[in-house]
């Protein structure tokens, strides 16, 4: 069953045509890698699929609903309820501890402080990062940062996890570990995963690889 779909979407930034009619369909529970050369439009595609931005033409559907025509508030609600995101550099709030960073989405969702903290710690444990729960992001290594960021993305139990180069800043050992934990947790949750990556080894973990060239999906590798 198709959960997330882009139909001939186009997106330009000034003169740069980042996406030129991309169509992709992603099934429920699937793990998909989006690969391609630098500047080919991978990140832009991810942003359009996740409702962070809207394409100029074409359609984006999620769970049978068209989302690119929703207003900002409705897309924000959708992202909060159904999606989780991980980016390259963790992007944790520097003033909060790791545990508080993970608890943040729960707090924004209206959960109590204690309850959120308990759930956050449980997720840090699953991500093998309980030992740094009370450290600030400035004190963490790149790998630890990304594991905390993954915990933050998964803590609300999202239907889809979007990850843009989650291992891009890590060496291969740390990268494998982050990716392994992310995919395992997603499988247990039954989440769909969309990973943008340069790295062929990362792509090898996916069920399917979508290659983007010059703003168009050039091929699908199974």
């Amino acid at each position, binding site marked *: 069953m198709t959960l997330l779909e882009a139909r001939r979407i186009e997106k330009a930034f000034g003169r740069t045509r980042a996406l030129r009619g991309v169509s992709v369909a992603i099934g429920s529970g699937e793990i998909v890698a989006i690969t391609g050369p630098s500047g080919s439009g991978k990140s832009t595609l991810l942003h359009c699929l996740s409702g962070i931005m809207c394409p100029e033409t074409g359609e984006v559907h999620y769970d049978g609903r068209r989302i690119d025509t929703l207003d900002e508030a409705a897309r924000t609600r959708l*992202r909060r309820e159904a*999606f989780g995101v991980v980016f390259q550099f963790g992007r*944790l709030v520097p003033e909060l501890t790791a545990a508080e960073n993970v608890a943040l989405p729960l707090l*924004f969702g209206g959960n109590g402080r204690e309850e959120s903290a308990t759930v956050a710690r449980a997720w840090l444990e699953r991500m093998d990062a309980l030992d740094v729960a009370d450290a600030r992001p400035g004190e963490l290594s790149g790998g630890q940062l990304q594991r905390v960021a993954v915990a933050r993305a998964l803590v609300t139990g999202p239907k889809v996890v979007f990850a843009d180069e989650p291992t891009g800043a890590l060496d291969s050992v740390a990268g494998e570990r982050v990716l392994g934990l992310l995919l395992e947790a997603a499988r247990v949750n039954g989440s769909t995963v969309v990973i943008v990556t340069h790295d062929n080894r990362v792509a090898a973990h996916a069920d399917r690889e979508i290659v983007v060239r010059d703003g168009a999906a050039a091929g699908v590798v199974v």
Partner: protein
Amino acid sequence: MTFFQVAGMLGRGGSRAERARARLVAAGAALATCFLFGAANVLTLNGQLDDRLGPIANRGTRPGVAFAFGLMILPVAAFLYQTGRLASADRERRLAALRLAGATPGEVRLLGALETTRSAALGTVCGAIAYVLLEWSIRGLLLHLPTTAAGVPPVPGLAAMALVIAVATVSGLLAGRHVVTSPLGVIRRATRRPPGRYVLLVPVLGCIPMVALVVGVQMPYRPFAILLGAGLSAVGLMLSASRLVWASARIAGRRARSAETLLAARALEADTRPWGRTMSILGLAVAIGSGTGWIQAGFMDARHTLDPFWLTSFTLVDLALLVGMAVAAAALITHQAEYLMEHGPVLATLRAAGVADGELRRVLTRQGIIAAVLPCSVAALIGLLPLARALHNETWALWPVTNAVLMAALGVLAATLATKASQHRLQRAVSPGRLRTE
């Protein structure tokens, strides 16, 4: 290439934030010049003037007015310091190229300060022209006095301008301390250490003689003790503002039930000093404003009327306090801009994860509220103390108390409005484009 050629070259290139800073420094310098000109002008007046001029009309009260004008330099200096810090990382990044070319850190810092000096010089000249025009028209149109006699004598006028430029240069040099430039890039050296706890003793010490007075203890050298107490309280209030902000940020962070409050409190706790600087000026204004309530109540109690002289005097004091608070709070706008620049990618990530713009705006506003409530309340209380006295009709005591509450509320409002004023930057700071930058 000479030093000055390099300085000129650097002046031309510059980011949006740097150009904004240049304009803000110029505005601050213009304001400072106007205040100093006002002080010089008042001191040169002769004889008794129209009663509607309030304290300016009487020879006896003129030095007081001049002093008040001089005091207005305080909020402007805080403003200049804060704007000097704005975009300092941007500027230093450009200057880092000079370090690669072999300039010493001292030279680089001096160049940075020179940029501030140039903006300040421009602002000072504009301020001087504006003041002269304004004074000339007020004298001619409103008071029908001869417009020929020059208001500000040239020598003190020029000295005032030189002083403003010097102060701006020094604050530029001081602001540059927070950034270390190495040939390889820029490191921000933010003081993370919380301000010391013992400064809180200073205002407490200052309050002792005043409390003693209120409860009716007999004191030797009474006027001197009260003056000393008031002075210590005022200085102590300014010194302890950072600590008070830090304390309320900590309490708010521990107690926070919402994500917005938690984010606001922790951001405040991590970077207390800019807030502390603003709150020390805001607090002083609140304390003075709260104190004038007693003076006003005393007058109304004794005379049941306010003549034009005193009405003008009180209005001028209130006006000066409002201007001071506005200028001090405006420094927060530049601080918030810096916060948004630094936290842009982090906030953009939160937004990507489904945090609404309204929630992010609340994070900014709550920083203002958390920072302002404690210092402003303490200031209002301290301001109520020194002049507490017996009134014939005790109902008049309601006036200073109401006044104190209003002043504290105004202080909090000023800080909150300043954070609201920076909200329009939020949209750009958290746009999806910021997800791409490191």
